[in-house]
């Protein structure tokens, strides 16, 4: 069968998460996209890592959707099947529980998203700046869509002149 293993994984996920699953797509062999409700997030990650063998976290992608920010966790099964697990958080109150307790390797990816999107990962051991300079103005998250290259330049210069 073409996507046998992929469909098996999706079936197991449906069994555990039931109606918390918003969307599932298997566009081709070795690729799965799953979007779930926020409240089932930790449970889903735990299940994927501990029971289904998705031990490798490739990275975490942030996407600005306007009112919300989407976080996509790219998890790999035996280096082969790449499952992208998506959740959305409110831009006004972007809080997500950390997954560093389940996957220690998530530590820098969470810091990266925190830096560039302003998402707070609750329970992360140290959410210090990772990428942006120490002098970078607070509350300016460059990968959010409201920041264009033009107004980003504005905020940086303002900071350097000490006005902010």
């Amino acid at each position, binding site marked *: 069968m073409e996507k046998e293993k992929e469909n098996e994984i999706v079936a197991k996920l449906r069994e555990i998460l039931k109606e918390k699953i918003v969307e599932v797509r298997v566009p081709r062999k070795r*690729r799965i996209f799953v979007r779930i409700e926020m409240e089932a997030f930790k449970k889903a990650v735990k299940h994927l890592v501990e029971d289904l063998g998705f031990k*490798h976290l490739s990275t975490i992608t942030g996407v600005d959707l306007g009112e919300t920010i989407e976080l996509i966790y790219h998890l790999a099964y035996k*280096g*082969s099947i790449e499952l992208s697990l998506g959740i959305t958080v409110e831009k006004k109150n972007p809080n997500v529980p950390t997954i560093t307790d389940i996957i220690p390797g998530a530590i820098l*990816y969470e810091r990266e998203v925190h830096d560039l999107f302003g998402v707070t990962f609750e329970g992360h051991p140290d959410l210090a700046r990772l990428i942006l300079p120490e002098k970078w103005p607070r509350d300016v998250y460059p*990968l959010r869509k409201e920041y264009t290259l033009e107004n980003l330049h504005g905020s940086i210069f303002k900071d350097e002149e000490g006005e902010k």
Partner: protein
Amino acid sequence: MSYGSIIKIPFGPQHPALKEPEHFLFEVDGDIVVNVKPRIGYNHRGIEKAFERRTYIQNIYLAERICGICSDAHTTCYTQAIESLLGVEAPPRARYIRVIIAELERIHSHSLWVGIAAHEIGFDTLFMYVWRDRETVMNLFEMISGNRVHYATNTIGGVRRDIPSQMIPKVKKGLDLLEKRFKYYLNVAQTEQTILKRTENVGILKPKDAVDLCAVGPTLRASGIKNDVRADDPYAAYDEIPFHVITHDGCDVLSRIIVRCEEMLESINIIRYALEHMPEGMTRVRVPLAVPEGETVSRVEAPRGELIHYAKSNGTMKPERYKVRSPTLGNIPALCKMLLGGHVADIPIVLAGIDPCFACMDRMSFIDVKTSKKWVWTMNQLKKHTRKVK
């Protein structure tokens, strides 16, 4: 044995000559590293934001410039992502050419690394030898693509340049020379005391830690984990080419040297096979400028390990979001683990062991927190200290 006071050593970030500066804050007890805090971003160029401002065609050239060593890995990953969004596939001949360029790149990157690793342990003769032989592969690149670094081979829908039949004997001749030399270096790495004394049981990364910390590439394979995107999630023509995934279970810097040397030999075999079996036909298909709405994940085994790109399109000529995660970032948590419990003198070679774009180490200051005494060591002074201790 504890000396009772923890000393903090900031390490990096500035280096005037190399790319990718990084900063590490080491806490040491006597000569033993007890804590490591990484800080990256000194070379952050905002490329992901820049992707959103440029057309898909312009972004090929931007992707090529993410890295100066594995430039081809990034364009392969990028063009695959956009091809998947467009629903087109590169023609068979183009997929073989992608493999040939990718494996030549692996040889050039790994041999560059072997040279640097030799230099870090004070074995400069080996450094000179390896880099002399590396010129062979650089010359092949120049012959095939006209360039030594940015080969600009990939484009959306295939490759921009064919490898004509009169070039093939020249490539094969180069490969024969490289094979002879790398077999020799593999033997040197396994028998030469200068290397063994500095790398055996240094920078240990146990298999469980390697998996938990999501290490990638040769770093992961040198801890005995058989993961390779080329075999596990085949792209280009890798599903049609037989090859071995090299692993080694020593878990130390020596294993990382051996894995990379053997991978170069394996790459030579892959290129030979690809040259023999390359199908005839066209090398690219025409694609539209605008990309329909969608999202995709593209993965490639770059010389340093798994490279992953995520692309989201919105139906226009520019991407909505483009995310890049290069293998060096994936290996930093594992690197911190390797350094723990090691000697200050081993920091350079362990750091070099993951093959970061090696940038950060020319200036460092040592601070004793109790007396607030500060001093600065250059990379050369640290190396002198290294040699005295050993």
